[in-house]
């Protein structure tokens, strides 16, 4: 057996004989499993609720009586987003965004709301996901297991005896890194098995699960390697522990909270108000279709009369109010869409700012990557909002067209169209978001993690030289 393997194996034997280390490792593995199963459980509970609500919502909609189409525009309805299968692993922003929105005909970008009961469920269990444990607690365990790995040999002078047997610094560091790297992967194993189970049952695709496993493997190796290397660079185990705890606090607790703060302080607060003002100014500019002197709608009326080759509104084969409704909807939707785009651009800028700093805190990289792959990141939620807005527009315009085209034939004081038409109105159907579609959102954080691993390997070479070289 090579020296590297011998040293790794000896590290395992030592940890196997260290009761507190074993208990801590066992607890963490247990916690990952418990988290996996509870969030799986809560995900399926929420999914069951969603299916039930969806069915009852559909039923009520279908049961609407004969009505004026505009009444139906104002008919509010819930849209549900099915929770992505891997969201059990990483709830991402789901617990803040919720997965239900309430839609009303004229309300673009309806405030989506996390239903109280559901959000409290997600908040309670959503936080304790395998992702949270792997991101936050697993590094602590790996530090605890490895901080003394090399410094202990220095302090107790077994290092001298090791070197006297002809062991080089590189073999020593490589052996310790192999030993603790393998432990890190073993710690991740139950979580990886859960993910693979999802791929095997077809609930998630192999590529997504594969990238997820690679990402977390890199993340865990990062902490195992960093612990060994710091341990090799200092003289005493307690110094290594102090430095590693500091690193953990900064990169895992402090930076991920401070950076988004800094990002929003940098460019959001001032501009958000500006957007609102701009939006209202644009809305006011549309004009008033009920004002006989409104220049825009006067032009619109003339253009419509031209198109149908008639001289008065009354002569039109369609209901003019319906056409105005269609045009008004088109205009306001355009304005909201533009505003949303500006908002999205600003968010992208902010995210880019945070991304730049993910080089400092690999936690940001793994967190981003993890929720992206789990389909629980802001982009997946935005996609849901976009789909619901597209649906809303289709829905409203279909009803407006019904109003324009069907009402003139019906006529009368209180014109209604048959309930049978409601079946024709499009229903919301969510098409799942593909996290792998935008490769840059996967590749950048992976590069950050790989870069950190590479940097650590260079540092390991340096530490190995210092250890194996002539003593100071």
């Amino acid at each position: 057996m090579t020296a590297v393997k011998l040293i790794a194996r000896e590290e395992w034997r030592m940890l196997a004989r260290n009761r507190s280390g074993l208990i801590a490792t066992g607890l963490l593995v247990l916690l990952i499993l418990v988290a996996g199963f509870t969030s799986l459980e809560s995900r399926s509970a929420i999914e069951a609720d969603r299916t039930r609500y969806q069915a009852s919502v559909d039923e009520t909609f279908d049961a609407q009586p004969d009505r004026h189409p505009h009444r139906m525009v104002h008919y509010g309805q819930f849209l549900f987003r099915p929770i992505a299968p891997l969201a059990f692993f990483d709830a991402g922003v789901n617990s803040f965004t919720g997965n239900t929105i309430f839609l009303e005909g004229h309300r673009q970008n309806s405030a989506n709301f996390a239903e109280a009961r559901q959000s409290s469920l997600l908040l309670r269990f959503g936080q304790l996901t395998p992702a949270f444990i792997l991101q936050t607690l697993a590094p602590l365990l790996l530090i605890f297991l490895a901080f003394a790995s090399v410094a202990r040999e220095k302090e107790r002078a077994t290092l001298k005896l090791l070197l006297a047997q002809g062991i080089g610094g590189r073999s020593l560091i490589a052996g310790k890194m192999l030993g603790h790297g393998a432990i890190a992967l073993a710690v991740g194993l139950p979580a990886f098995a859960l993910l693979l189970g999802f791929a095997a049952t077809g609930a998630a695709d192999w590529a997504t699960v594969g990238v997820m496993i690679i990402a977390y493997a890199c993340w865990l190796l990062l902490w195992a390697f960093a612990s060994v290397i710091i341990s090799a660079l200092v003289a005493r185990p307690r110094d290594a522990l102090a430095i590693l705890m500091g690193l953990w606090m900064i990169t895992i607790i402090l930076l991920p909270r401070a950076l988004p703060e800094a990002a929003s302080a940098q460019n959001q607060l001032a501009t958000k108000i500006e957007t609102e003002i701009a939006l209202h100014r644009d809305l006011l500019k549309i004009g008033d279709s009920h004002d006989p002197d409104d220049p825009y709608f006067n032009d619109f009326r003339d253009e419509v009369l031209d198109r149908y080759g008639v001289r008065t509104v009354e002569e039109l084969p369609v209901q003019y109010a319906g056409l105005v409704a269609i045009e008004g909807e088109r205009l306001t939707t355009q304005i909201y869409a533009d505003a949303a785009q500006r908002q999205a651009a600003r968010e992208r800028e902010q995210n880019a700012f945070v991304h730049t700093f993910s080089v400092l805190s690999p936690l940001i990289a793994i967190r981003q990557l993890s929720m992206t792959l789990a389909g629980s990141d802001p982009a997946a939620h935005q996609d849901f909002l976009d789909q619901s807005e597209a649906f809303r527009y289709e829905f409203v315009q279909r009803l407006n067209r019904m109003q324009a085209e069907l009402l003139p034939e019906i006529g009368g004081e209180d014109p209604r169209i048959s309930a049978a038409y409601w079946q024709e109105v499009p229903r919301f159907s969510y098409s799942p978001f593909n996290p792998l579609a935008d490769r840059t959102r996967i590749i950048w954080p992976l590069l950050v993690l790989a870069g950190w691993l590479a940097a650590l390997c260079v540092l390991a070479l340096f530490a190995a030289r210092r250890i194996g070289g002539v003593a100071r």
Partner: protein
Amino acid sequence: MTNIFTAPAIAIDGLHHSYGANPVLRGLDLTVQRGEIYALLGGNGAGKSTTLSALLGFLRPCSGSVRVCGTDPVADARAARSQMAYVPENVSLYEHLTARENIGYFLALAKAERGGDAIEAALSAVGLTQAAKDKRLSGFSKGMRQKVAIALALARDVPVLLLDEPTSGLDPRAVLEFNRLLDAAREREVAVLMVTHDLVSAVDIADRIGFLSEGKIEEEQTASTAGPRFDLNALHDRYTLVAGAPA
């Protein structure tokens, strides 16, 4: 480079070494041949351990040359260390391992897998009881740990033994047994450089005794072939004089 078979096992020539501004070795010359036991004596802080560190390649000499079986331990530490076994001053082995496991591990690292029998024999040779061989070191006394370290050095089966106060912590009977082991090593043509404060033991076993003082071998005596090997009384007076002098 000198031939590995003709070169002296240990050859130190005009060695100077300082820790910062503190000069410890100042032109040390020391040669130990194969089949020879050299006892190095000297006061606390005289530089005895530093000398062994230089041989192991743990430090870079300011000037002078150090060779182990013709190899420069700084230039090629791996080759030099494959020729040497070392018992450090403060024996430190793995507390969570048994005596047997400790030796097995270090031998494997030294690529000197000797098999269970050799380990067993080495542990018996240093006088460790059967029960102690499979006990974790955390329950060992200083002397027992010392025995394990000695057993490891012997089991390495190399041409050069560097021993830093190997008999400290050993009871008189164990010291006697240890001297018999050194005897046997000499028979196998091993070169032994032993740092010790145990003059009686040195007189009993050494071929040469050197006094290290002011960074040099101040005086060296060779065992006479006829009559008593050394004059213990004279050595004792010499030793207290050297040891009493400021380093």
